[in-house]
């Protein structure tokens, strides 16, 4: 169908986007690579010369490295599981006939509009604070000792906040997918006496697999780089330092751009491992 002319026209049309993104990727990437081999210390006057692989070795042998990688994966996987599981359930619920469906939908999608800094601040201070937070009030009401969330449950706190922000996104995509499900197929299954759980498992879940893949892919991209939620809550204390946060500390707190850049290269490698892993699943599911 495509002629030669339309092919070259197509290439021309793709060019601006591809060139821009190539530039946006290559220029910073090249600079990151360059700096990662330099002793670049802004507070000591800038570039102090070639560093070889020192920055790479130092970053990876630092006691904070592996915990940060694990923390990153833990948070990403935790949020993905919560948002997908709750998202499916919520989408099923919202798909049911009810009064005021539009308003409920508005309520459910609202967290997606809240900026990460704000949701971090609001959750940390007004809900999770162990003295004046609402959760502490509730715990006290039931006679329990309020939990010091940021200290003893830093991961749970961060995962809670981030999941709250991303649940609407997952729900919306899954809801759209459920709505496209052939209701006759479901009814037929119902007639045949298939119990609800079986219908869910054998008809709904396979139908949703593509949507779930998309949710996983898009969310992973954003979750790998979450920053504001950690910065305003634990600031990386109590073991909640992710790789992104560790790089932030190296670059802006320790003012060691070379070391931070080496960390950046590791983060890119990690992201690509995750991406390849995802692509394996996604690629299969996205083939149209």
């Amino acid at each position, binding site marked *: 169908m495509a002629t030669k002319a339309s092919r070259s026209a197509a290439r021309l049309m793709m060019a601006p986007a591809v060139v821009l993104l190539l530039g946006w990727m290559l220029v910073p990437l090249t600079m990151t690579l360059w700096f990662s081999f330099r002793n670049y210390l802004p*507070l000591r006057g*800038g570039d102090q010369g070639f560093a070889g692989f020192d920055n790479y070795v130092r970053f990876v042998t630092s*006691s904070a490295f592996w915990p940060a990688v694990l923390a990153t994966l833990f948070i990403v996987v935790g949020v993905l599981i919560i948002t997908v599981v709750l998202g499916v359930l919520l989408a099923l619920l919202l798909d049911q006939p009810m009064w005021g469906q539009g308003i409920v939908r508005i309520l459910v999608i609202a967290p997606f509009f809240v900026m990460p800094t704000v949701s971090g601040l609001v959750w940390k201070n007004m809900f999770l604070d*162990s*003295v004046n937070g609402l959760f502490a009030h509730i715990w006290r009401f039931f006679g329990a000792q309020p939990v010091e969330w940021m*200290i003893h449950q830093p991961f749970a706190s961060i995962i809670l906040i981030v999941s709250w922000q991303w649940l609407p996104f997952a729900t919306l995509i899954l809801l759209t997918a459920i709505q496209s499900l052939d209701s006759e197929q479901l009814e037929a299954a119902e007639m045949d006496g298939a119990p609800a759980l079986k219908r869910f498992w054998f008809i709904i879940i396979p139908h949703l697999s593509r949507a779930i893949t998309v949710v996983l892919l898009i969310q992973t991209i954003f979750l790998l780089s979450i920053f504001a939620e950690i910065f305003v809550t634990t600031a990386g204390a*109590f*073991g909640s330092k992710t790789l992104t946060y560790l790089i932030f500390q190296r670059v*802006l707190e*320790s003012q060691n751009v070379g070391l931070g850049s080496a960390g950046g290269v590791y983060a890119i490698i990690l992201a690509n491992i995750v991406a390849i892993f995802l692509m394996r699943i996604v690629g299969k599911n996205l083939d149209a």
Partner: protein
Amino acid sequence: MFVRNALRAATALTLLTTGSAMAETITIATVNNGDMIRMQGYTDQFTAETGIDVEWVTLEENVLRQRVTTDITTNGGQFDIMTIGMYETPIWGKNGWLVPLNDLSADYDAADILPAMAGGLSYDGTLFAAPFYGESSMVMYRTDLMAAAGLEMPDAPTWDFIRQAAAAMTDRANDINGICLRGKAGWGEGGAFITAMSNSFGAQWFDMDWNPTFDSEAWLNTLNFFKGMMDESGPAGYATNGFNENLSLFQQGKCGMWIDATVAASFVTNPNDSTVADSVGFALAPDNGLGKRSNWLWAWALAIPAGTQKADAAKAFIEWATSKEYIELVAANEGWANVPPGARTSLYENPEYQAVPFAQMTLDSILSADPNNSTVNPSPYVGIQFAAIPEFAGIATDVSQEFSAAYAGQQTVEEALAKAQAIAAEAMEAAGY
């Protein structure tokens, strides 16, 4: 069509706003502390006097620090005045990034700046930042709770007395904690407190060869004492409490004692914000009989980056904002208790200010702090609650996170110190010491 119109409208508006900013305008980056915010309210007076417009970039402390550091190290030129502290000033001054403030006008009376402040904001004898307000730290305590416990606070308490008093005042059933202290991670939060405290225990960050000394007995004693006392008498979750959290607790009447910045005195005695305003007493920060007290020295100061084109206008603003006249302006409108403290000698000679209950103790605390001689044994660095070297902030943030984890009971004090030693040694070696 819509797109084109929207873009055109956007361009037009951009031109409009840049067009109107032709008069001389200086941009100031500052921290969102109460005194700074009050100053913004009076800026109109400065503009009326000089015709110089002022644009503010007000940021929370941590964000401010990264923002101005990025700009100064890259010579970005985004700010004409930066609000910085005693940690940054000597390092930046040494690198030639700041405009020297050695030619301020005679009216300004630079000799009136408290010597401790001027010393901490200079490099090699040249002043690089003018103090807007200065602080040390001291004990703030509830006179009613002390009386109820049958104790009397000496003017210069020891740590043992503080610990004993804290235990006596603690009444957990009524939500009263004997003592509130900073345990929050971050070099400017819990890191600053424990470092200042460690000085009075004979500890220090680095020995004369720049080797970290967290493996010393003195550090172990410091941390054990701190954690022991806070576990006995401190609030739950103190490992995440910083200045703001403790201020809030104290104002709500939940603390018997609080050892923190002297500037907090005006907040805890202000009846609008504090439920305990009429029953607060003050004392010097405690010691251990080793010759050093545990009070720090800090100033929020205004400095001019060397890259600015508007150094004269910036200097005019600094002379205005840190002048004696500004202090009088605030005093006339808000009362003497609310003027920016700790910067000028003349303020403490003013009889009206001497009547403020915390004035004398603040001055005594500031005068007893010496950044050039902060530790019991000799140390190679300048600074009391910090060491003024570029690597310190990064190391101390990591170290204070280990300490906070120990406060929270997630590791032992010994483990935290061992990790701190490793972190600091690694970073110092990397920095080429």
